[in-house]
């Protein structure tokens, strides 16, 4: 029996079909957007369990947060989150000076050997649960933040969440701040939180310091 040759679809037909799908998809997306815009007050969207800082970020104030699982009891972590220990795990923090009355002055490394000063007041403490702070007018950068400690399930330790907000300032300080929080502010928070985790779980901040054949690197300093 002779084998039937199956005709391949005409390339033009295929292209037309592809274009049709694209038009349909775009139309559907537009319709969906209009539908959501036209939603009435009583059709309020359901409040979900997403952490609030992950929801729509339309505010001009930069808000970001990061959570990390740390295999230690909540009380230990709360106790370790003290300004004296910040320079151990916060990459850009040079020093934190206690000015009394829950106000502290932070000296932070900035590019070209410069430094930025933050003056923050702790506004609320809930034992073993959370710490809130807010900058004072003396601060170079207006900022506020919160660190939360919640029990992780099944004895896994603690979820530590760091939530920060700051007003990107204008002028010279603004330029420094922009470089201080390069592109994505979350990067710094994530790195610092991971260093805190390393310190609390292993007793040291992990380092890949080791030799290479690159003369620019020291065997005693971490590298990228």
């Amino acid at each position, binding site marked *: 029996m002779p084998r039937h040759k199956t005709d391949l679809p005409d390339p033009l037909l295929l292209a037309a079909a592809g274009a049709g799908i694209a038009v349909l998809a775009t139309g559907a997306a537009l319709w969906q957007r209009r539908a959501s815009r036209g939603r009435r007050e009583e059709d309020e969207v359901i409040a979900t369990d997403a952490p609030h800082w992950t929801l729509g970020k339309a505010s001009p104030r930069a808000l970001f947060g990061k959570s990390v699982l740390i295999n230690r009891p909540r009380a230990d972590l709360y106790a370790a989150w003290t300004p004296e220990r910040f320079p151990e795990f916060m990459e850009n923090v040079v020093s934190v000076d206690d000015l009394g009355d829950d106000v502290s002055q932070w000296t932070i490394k900035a590019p070209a050997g410069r430094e930025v000063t933050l003056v923050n007041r702790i506004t609320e403490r809930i034992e073993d649960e959370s710490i809130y702070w807010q900058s004072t007018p003396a601060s170079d950068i207006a900022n506020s933040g919160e660190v939360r400690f919640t029990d992780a399930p099944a004895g896994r330790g603690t979820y530590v969440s760091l939530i920060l907000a700051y007003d990107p300032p204008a002028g010279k300080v603004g330029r420094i701040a922009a470089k201080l929080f390069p592109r994505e502010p979350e990067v710094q928070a994530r790195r610092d939180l*991971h260093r805190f985790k390393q310190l609390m779980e292993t007793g040291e901040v*992990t380092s890949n310091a080791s030799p290479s054949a690159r003369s620019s690197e020291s065997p005693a300093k971490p590298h990228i």
Partner: protein
Amino acid sequence: MRAVTWQGRHKISVETVPDPEIVNPRDAIIRVTSTAICGSDLHLYDGYIPGMRAGDIVGHEFMGEVVETGASSTLKRGQRVVIPFTISCGQCFFCEKQQFSACDNSNPSETRNASELMMGHAMGGAFGYAHLTGGYAGGQAEYVRIPYSDVGPVIIPDDLADDDVLFLSDILPTGWQAAVNADIEPGDTVAVWGCGPVGLFAIQSALLLGAGRVIAIDHFPTRLALARKHGAEILDYTQVDIREALAEMTGGIGPDACIDCVGMESHGFTADNILDQVKVKMLSSTERIHALRQAILACRKGGRLSIPGVYGGFADKFPLGQLMEKGLTVKSGQTHVQRYAGELLDMIREGKFDTVSLISHHAPLEDAADMYRHWHDEQNLYTKIVLKPGLEKGAVSARQELQHA
């Protein structure tokens, strides 16, 4: 010190570099006495692994003598230790679950972003294997800094020679975990793709774990002869259609478990592999997965697939429908060396493993560049190379030609 460095694709050189230093309390420094070249070093050599930088010190299978300890290291100077290639803190959620290669602390904050982006989560740290795994200097060197030295290193009694225990660093536990992951039931038929060092240890492990028979697949006669020596039945894929042979050897149902000890650089001249080669060359695919495809199609329905072979990213033409419709169970991952090293050391002492037959060459560290070339180009003759720091350049010794069984 002298160290083997990666300088680019197919460029390996031995350079003089600074000595490592103790930087953290749990660190130790060892003087390397033996260090092997791994099959996965070939993926670096061939430029398949992203995140390598010119000047990186390579090598992740090594052992030596403790010469310096940090304040909270539990090691003592003079102790002989084998170093697991995975760097693990021992205290995070993953280490406590014995999933040491998933350690959440060993990849430092400076390097974790890249693999978080690529893999969804930061990978655990490893020695001498690119900046995705932490950017740690490797063990093909005279000295190495060992982080978390109170958790990883396996202390070796003096009556065991380097060659007996060196492979506890990677390929023995990797072959063992591959067989453990195959969930072998007594009497099972297990097929093993690739008779390189990991495949040879997977064969031995599968038999120790109760497999009735192991069928090994390769095309290098020396490697197939080693597989037979370790108790496997052997198939040369240049002589037969592997799927047909496996089906005919199992009454048509296929092997109960399939172990892919090949990874991302499959050999062979089947149509799919030639297309993979072209796509990889044109940077439109990251791997050649011919062996894995074949394993999925060959495996019996409801069977198990264990993947110790290394893959780096997105595979092309992955037979997902076949995997699902046949109901295969897949287990994979980098090796949790610290989980298995203790019991495997005991098994070596009891003579349960042949850890030396696969070594084809001992060579000076200084000859590393030549050895990488041989390892890459002459896989029949070179079945495992052990480098020795301190040997005079050129002092290479090869084992007796293996009798083809």
